[in-house]
């Protein structure tokens, strides 16, 4: 199960943070800070997995952005790595060539996409097309 999802830039600014387990605000800030410190200086040749407390963080870097998933220790790391990539592809598709600024100004849409992709810490939909279509329908309701 995914415990939380973080999207941070190289400076450690959080661009998206979704928690599927309850945490105090102060604890969330601590987690965000620690995860950033864990991943930011790792060699690109290193594994995309870091142990974090009693869980592990699966992360992947896209330009200046770090996508990090915190998952259970027994979960399939490689699958979650694919999962990050799929999410990025969806964002890329939706914003047509996504960049950090898109995510900043449309953070609420990013959350919306994420809610169509993952729910309760589990994968909800794996089809890029299905999610983009669904987003189109939701946008029409605005």
């Amino acid at each position: 199960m995914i415990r939380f999802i973080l999207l941070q830039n190289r400076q450690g600014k959080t661009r998206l943070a979704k928690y599927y387990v309850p945490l105090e605000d102060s604890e969330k800030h601590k987690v965000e800070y620690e995860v950033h410190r864990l991943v930011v200086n790792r060699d690109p040749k290193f594994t995309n997995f870091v142990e974090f407390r009693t869980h592990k963080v699966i992360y992947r870097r896209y330009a200046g952005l770090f996508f990090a998933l915190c998952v259970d220790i027994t979960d399939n790391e490689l699958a979650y790595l694919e999962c990050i990539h799929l999410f990025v592809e969806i964002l890329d598709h939706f914003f047509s060539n996504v960049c950090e600024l898109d995510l900043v100004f449309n953070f609420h849409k990013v959350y919306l996409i994420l809610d169509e992709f993952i729910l309760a810490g589990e994968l909800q939909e794996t089809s890029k097309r299905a999610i983009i279509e669904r987003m189109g329908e939701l946008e029409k309701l605005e």
Partner: protein
Amino acid sequence: MNPFSSGTRLRDMIRAIRACKTAAEERAVVRKECAAIRTSMNENDQDYRHRNLAKLMFIHMLGYPTHFGQMECLKLIASAGFPEKRIGYLGLMLLLDERQEVLMLVTNSLKQDLNHSNQYIVGLALCALGNICSAEMARDLAPEVERLLQFRDPNVRKKAALCTIRIIKKVPDLSENFINPAAALLKEKHHGVLITGIQLCTDLCKVSPEALEFLRKKHTDGLVKTLKDAVNSPYTPEYDISGIADPFLHIRLLKLLRVLGQGDADASDAMNDILAQVATKTESNKNAGNAILYECVETIMSIEDNGGLRVLAINILGRFLSNRDNNIRYVALNMLMKAITVDAQAVQRHRATILECVKDSDASIQKRALELVYVLVNETNVKPLTKELIDYLEVSDQEFKGELTAKICSIIEKFSPEKNWYIDQMLKVLKKAGNFVKDEVWHALIAVISSASDLHGYTVRALYKAFQTSSEQESLVRVAVWCIGEYGDMLVNNVGMLDIEDPITVTESDTVDVVKIAIKHHALDLTTKAMALIALLKLSSRFPSCSERIKDIIVQHKGSFVLELQQRSLEFNSIIEKHQNIRSALVERMPILDDATFSTRRAGSLPAAASTSGGASLNLPNGVAKPSAAPLVDLLDLSDDLPAPCSSGGDFLQDLLGVDLSPAPSQSGIGQIQKAGTDVLLDLLSIGTPLQSSSPTTDILSSNQNDKSPIATLDALSSPSSLSAQATSSARAAPMMDLLDGFGPSPLKPEDNGSVYPPLVAFQSSSLRITFNFSKQPGNPQTTLIQATFTNLTPNVFTDFIFLAAVPKFLQLHLDPASSNILPASGNGSITQNLRVTNSQHGKKSLVMRTRMSYKFDNKVTLEEGQINNFPQDLGS
């Protein structure tokens, strides 16, 4: 009306924030925005409500407090339109979590929305429920979700399936109702519903044995068929991940099959063929393919034994292990750990590769590999493996050394074939990483050394040599110092030479030098130095010629600021000087520490040790980690006054540390309420204004009040304790005399600097009273001398009476020793104690003080606490 279309203020706010050059600027912008949002909320502005909340979410993401927006979420959720609801639910998921009580208020809205005719609104409600549902909500809303599992729209069904996972995790009892609807999802044609349904069934099996039994009996074959279809499905671009068809479905199916196959031979048998097919047919040049293989291997390892399949699985892991991609090697190590219980021999074949992984530059791989090596060690390979690991210890990263050291020590201890080897290896570890060796490890080493009597000489010489090169390794120094103290004579006389040793010449004086270096070494800690002092004492008897020199070294610590060292120094010195006759008997060699008793004693104490260390570092995954400040606050014993636990605890520390007290500008309403709750503290900690308003009477203290208060004190003295005039006699007389002394010369001129202040009943409870008498030294108005008089109002004698006082930072407090620590019963005598308080803010701030009294009667320790903020005004200003 769309709040997000360009040109509206959310965009503007984000721009303004992004334009900020400094953190201070950003705070200012956020503060202004928050103020505007609050105003708008207070006016109950309908039009801007969702824009405000959207802004708040952004502000929240930047890390600012946004509690005040929580109620807005509920209002938006309750409104009719989809856009409002959408923002409301988003805010609900971001700003709140299941522990907030506000959440209870949303249950009803959720229920309505789950029954809404618009399926998009149902989707929103399901999503929110799945992400933040609490146990109560799970119970209340489970029937709705159960119904939605059969909803016509697949988007709702898949959301309901995942929502159910959350519900059964929160309330496992509810799982019974979901078994049938969940199983129905396994036959779905819709891909998203199928994948979520499989996940739901996996989680159901975890919480409910009935569900597991049911699914195993009825659905194993169906799932095998689904997997078969997935494997043989034609190319579907929609679910294709870099050329691998639908890996996510594969992985979920494999996982559920694993759960079903575990511990059940029939089910395992049913899935053998398809597992073999997946293991052989999946392409392994893509990450997605490897993800499937990895999951498949895990399933093969977990289900009931099938020799052929396992060989296949181990071979896949072998391929993984030699992969160039670090991620693949990592998962291989991870899985080999599980494989070792199944086929240790097969894993042993990869030992060399695994050992290489320990030396990888990537910490994640190192860690996995080390754990694997640790379980691979056995009697036959312990020597070469230990050698490899110890060699690597030298060049490993600092962060990794601790773990590596612990594992090496554990291996040495567990598998050492003979004591000689054990001691040799431990010395190597101590030399290279002595600072990382845990206490219990070197304790055990000393026990082993002690019991190996034929190796005493060899060991002490080896340690002597090791010390010359690695005197900065704390635990090496400790072991060396201990052994030199015990076996120093063997070092000098080369007793018990082994064949492998080169003879060395060490004089008695050289030996003492070693201990002297240890004791002088600034980086070594108290324990080491204390051990060194004992070693010196022992050497003084073993080397009579060096006795004088040793005495000099010992005497140097007579003035040590560390009590322990000072005491040892004084005691040892007097042993050397005055008790020659018993010295040699005192410092005889320690009896052999029996291995067996040592290890049983250690085993007894081990669980405790383990639990303490575990408690600190391995705190619950994502549970609320206790703020480390809390124990400190407890120590300072102010926790009782703190209604808001952690946050204000931190504030308090800040106060103590003199950090600016003014509430952070962006502090929310709730934050401020908490502050108000702690105003006791603020009082104590010196905010001038509240203090004055809280004791308005003090500044009109006039001469007649001065006259009254001593009388009041006298009255009070005799009234509560029925016991007669004697109560006020004898010892009581002293403070009274003081009072009168103070009064005598000029009773009506309290403003005359440095003469008379009204005494103060600083504390009064049913059992204890404290009276303060004040005086000042002429010419030193900042300093107030206080004579505290303690009176026992109960008929029991108090023993071990201790009075403690604390003052804020701008005051300095000096306490003289008390006149006694026994407080006679019934006011029949008292204790006095002098205090000196210097006010660095004299004239600006008044005195304040917190007090704490502890005493014993009936063998019970009683604690009392008080706070004094009604010091006579003219003392301070």
